[in-house]
């Protein structure tokens, strides 16, 4: 056990391990690229959807259930399915990651919108604000903390799951996990897993710090 931890430590800090196309720096960059792009796409889909159903109150049942369906899809199964249909590209990976991220964004955005006090909305309308003004100047700012929580959750899930890119021959930190498993190299597997965990925790802390900073004047 001690030996293993020592090897793991060596693996994580050796300069050799950090450089080159199979180096940690490169794999980390790939991993972040996959994760951020997937979360952005998911946000582009999930945010408008969540705002729309939250604002109108219509279609919530369908949208939330559809989103939960996305959450229940087995990610690896989805990757294989899209792969077999469309061939070898990053598309299967992005489809799976987006399907994973959209539910968290939609449900949190919707929850944030419904949590806005109806009296406040009434008051806004009473002042003669138009629907889009109520949405963007009243509801959205009030719902923002929950919306950001949704984005944060989505990103963390995606970071942890982006390892599947390696399953279909691409890079990212999952490369270490899959290669290590296949080559019976436990240190490499652990190294990859630890790095993924560190990235997820670091991003979570970063975003929650940002959230606290942005909403520092608000009372909960």
């Amino acid at each position, binding site marked *: 056990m001690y030996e293993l931890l020592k090897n793991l430590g060596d693996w994580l800090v050796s300069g050799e391990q950090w450089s080159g196309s199979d180096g940690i720096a490169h794999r980390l960059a790939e991993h972040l690229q996959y994760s951020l792009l997937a979360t952005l796409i998911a946000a582009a889909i999930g945010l408008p959807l969540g705002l729309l159903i939250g604002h109108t109150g219509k279609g919530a049942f369908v949208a939330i259930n559809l989103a939960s369906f996305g959450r229940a899809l087995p990610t690896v199964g989805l990757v*294989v399915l899209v*792969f*077999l249909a469309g*061939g*070898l590209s990053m598309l299967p990976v992005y489809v799976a990651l987006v399907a994973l991220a959209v539910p968290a964004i939609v449900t949190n955005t919707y929850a944030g919108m419904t949590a806005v006090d109806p009296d406040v909305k009434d008051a806004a309308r009473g002042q003669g604000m138009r629907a889009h003004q109520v949405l963007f100047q009243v509801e959205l700012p009030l719902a923002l903390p929950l919306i950001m929580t949704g984005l944060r959750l989505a990103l963390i899930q995606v970071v942890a799951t982006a390892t599947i890119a*390696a*399953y*279909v*021959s691409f890079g990212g930190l999952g*490369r270490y996990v*899959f*290669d290590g*498993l*296949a*080559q*019976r190299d*436990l240190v490499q*597997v652990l190294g990859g897993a630890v790095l993924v965990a560190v990235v997820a925790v670091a991003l979570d802390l970063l975003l929650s710090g940002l959230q606290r900073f942005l909403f520092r004047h608000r009372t909960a």
Partner: protein
Amino acid sequence: MNRRTLLGGLFAAASVPALAACSSGITSLENQGSAGSGGGSSKGGLTIGTANFTENQVLGYLYAAVLEAAGVKVTVRPNLGTREILIPALRGGDIDLLPEYQGALLHYVSPKAKATEEGEMQNALTIALPSGLQVLPYGMAEDSDAFVVTRETAGKYGLASLADLKKQNGKLVIGAAPEVKKREVGAVGLKEVYGVEFKEFKSLDSSGPLVKGALKKGDVDVANLFTTDTDIQANDWVVLTDPKNLIPGQHVVPLIADRKADATVRKALARLGNTLTTAQLTELNRLVDKDKKDPEDVADEYAREHGLVK
């Protein structure tokens, strides 16, 4: 799931003594697996364990069918897992017999072994196996690694053997399981023995839907599959020949605990080994995987048809 899975797993068998392969010259096919088979007896019945993939289970039920016909009481415990589970179970007495593959088993017990020819491997196995275990004579059927291209690719680049790949150095993309990148029977050996360099190595799965899908769609030019994969025939793919014997033979070989290895078992399994061919084994795999038949029924029917049981 396939033969390589049996090899896979995290924890290499640290307890197994790693002996270097035997030197040249020991190629006699006599004496196969006879080491230490003094006091074994199958009178009290025996238990067959199988690994977690179709072919191994079919083989396990074939063993069961012929052994029962020879009067041995047999219990089958299918789908137990990988070698990391099966070998300790065999040594510990939970199971007594296991369908194995020469090259893969030899690599497991003796990772540095260099033997690739059947007789050499059989002898190397006899030397390297931990005490209490032995291999019986190997069968004709073989499930080895193959490097496969589509008929179209073969025609376009003039590919018939692994040596031909060198002419296209830097042009072709290979798809295989991640471990193949660092394996002797893989990118490493192809470079050392045949001087082949690929444009890119794509880590996919071993003879599974990903690598076959990629080959079919042309995302990879060369794929690492197994010879008993039914899709090779179904798609009219071309298996590249191996004139320099890079790929070790993977004949099916029974691995048995000394305590159960007697003449009855030995003869029954040898008869099966002399009957079952690679093509037939491939067909049995197909019946289970594609036609969704029960592996036990498939094995029993084969044994009946070929006169192995009455």
